[in-house]
């Protein structure tokens, strides 16, 4: 017996489908380098934010160590690509090493600290992530320190690589876009992100997802019906860490650079938190909506404000207020308004609207 979906839920799912379609055809629809960067970042961050939502939204675990696991995956691939050269073996082995490191740290932190109250657990994850961030800066012989690591990726992803050739030996173009290594790299990011996102959808749709929601609502009740809460919380912490690590590996392959600012910084952790809150906790669709809005705002709000500032240049005060340098102020205001009007996040609030009798 299936519940009838609200119009809000149908609308959100349609929006997610539209975003999926736009991301699928992004190289052909938005033919500039920056747009492709934005599309790839959205793909990776949807996975990262969705994996964080498994923790905070589905299980009620507040962690500040999610970028640490993202960093393990990215640095794993980066270090091996530098050491072993630009081959798939380095990507796969680096990714696996990142996952193994994430699982070891997540299991240790989980078993030692998931018994304590939420705030203490959050503090422990914050401390662990801080230690890893300092180590990444200090162990410069492996990590490149503050400068990070630049490396080459498999030949398939080189911009000069021709995926399809015409009769004259020239690279084939579809809709005016050359089918080169950059397109291959984007689709590597898109399809691995899609696979990871679908895997998480399967997890939350399975009985495990229901158990996690029960634990979030009341741990003692979940235990009283036979669920070992610490074991489940540790398992989901490990699962979330492994997915974040894989997202880090994918991002490292896309960027061809890995440094503390791109994968480990607390600024990224705050971005992830904002994306989860804006999108709506406890729903995978929220990760998609929150990520798209936040990344678009980060990349295009400044441009939009520049255009708006020029448009109102003849008026007093407004051009100053809309000065592109003040984009963070406006981003903050937009965030406050979103929290005010969508207290359960955009997805969480809208999915309750428009019930069908």
């Amino acid at each position, binding site marked *: 017996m299936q519940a009838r979906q609200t119009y809000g839920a149908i609308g959100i799912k349609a929006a997610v489908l539209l975003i999926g379609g736009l991301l699928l055809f992004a190289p052909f629809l938005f033919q500039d380098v920056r747009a492709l960067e934005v599309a790839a970042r959205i793909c990776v961050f949807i996975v990262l934010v969705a994996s964080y939502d498994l923790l905070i939204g589905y299980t009620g675990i507040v962690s500040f160590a999610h970028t640490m696991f993202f960093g393990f995956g990215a640095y794993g691939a980066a270090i091996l690509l530098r050491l072993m050269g630009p081959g798939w073996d380095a990507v796969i082995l680096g990714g696996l090493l990142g996952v193994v490191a994430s699982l070891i740290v997540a299991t240790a932190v989980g078993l030692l600290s998931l018994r304590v109250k939420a705030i203490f657990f959050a503090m422990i994850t914050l401390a662990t992530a801080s230690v890893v961030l300092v180590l990444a800066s200090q162990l410069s012989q492996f990590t490149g320190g503050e400068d990070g690591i630049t490396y080459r990726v498999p030949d398939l992803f080189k911009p000069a690589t021709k995926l399809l050739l015409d009769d004259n030996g020239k690279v084939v173009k579809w809709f005016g876009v050359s089918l080169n290594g950059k397109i291959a790299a984007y689709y590597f990011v898109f399809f691995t992100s899609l696979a990871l996102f679908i895997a998480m959808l399967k997890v939350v749709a399975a009985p495990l997802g229901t158990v996690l929601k029960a634990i979030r609502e009341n741990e*003692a009740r979940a*235990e009283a019906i036979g669920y070992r809460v610490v074991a489940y919380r540790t398992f989901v912490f490990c699962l979330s860490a492994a997915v974040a690590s894989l997202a880090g590996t994918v991002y490292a392959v896309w960027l061809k650079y890995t440094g503390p600012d791109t994968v480990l910084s607390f600024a990224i952790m705050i971005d992830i938190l904002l994306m989860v809150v804006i999108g709506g906790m406890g729903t995978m669709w929220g990760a998609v909506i929150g990520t798209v809005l936040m990344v678009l705002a980060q990349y295009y709000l400044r441009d939009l404000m520049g255009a708006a500032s020029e448009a109102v240049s003849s008026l007093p005060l407004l051009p100053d207020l809309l000065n592109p340098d003040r984009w963070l102020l406006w981003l903050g205001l937009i965030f406050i308004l979103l929290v005010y009007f969508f207290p359960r996040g955009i997805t969480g609030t809208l999915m309750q609207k428009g019930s069908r009798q």
Partner: protein
Amino acid sequence: MTLLTLENMKTDIGQYSVLHDVSFSVPEGGVFVLLGRNGAGKTTTLRSIMGLWKPSPGSVRFRGDDITDLHTADIARKGIAYVPENMGIFGTLSVAENLILATAKGQFDQNRLDRVQVLFPALKTFWTKQAWSLSGGQKQMLAVARAIIEPRALILIDEPTKGLAPSIVAAMAEAFSEIAETTTILLVEQNFSFARQIGRDMAVIEDGRIVHTGSMADFVADKALQSRLLSLSA
């Protein structure tokens, strides 16, 4: 045959000693009622059996095995279901999800599901509704349904009639009698008129001590004893 035995159980909550010396045995089959006034230690007894509060000293034996130091989840997996006073349902989950949580393999056994839906037909109507939106009686039905959706040896039920309309209480009495044909129930109650309808054996707890045990029929017949232990008019 004895299913559950509590021996010299003493439970402290923080600095307060709630149970001083609780000993009684629950025989297999039927409804065993633990009666007592507010604050006598009825809920603490059930929570101590479930391992939510650890008795020290004292022991809890289930089918002969000492379960005193087991984890709550492991006690539940031994075949003991707990329906707490506040019903213990998950409000943000649907009726179906609440029930599926209590299944061993994450899927329903059709025969047991049919039995639950015959006992509590209202649940079928609200199958996909979130549990917080149910009425008090429906929430209680859901809580009991969750306890019987899998085969259990013992169900601990804490004051199921509290705040319910008389018609719902009557339906509950009927349902409990039917459940007790296959599953032992340890029922904590203040509502004596409800308890006497379905109870086979009983105990009375007062200030954390068991002050009487025996058959419900004998207790019902002894008006003076009722008056002394429960302040009921003779």
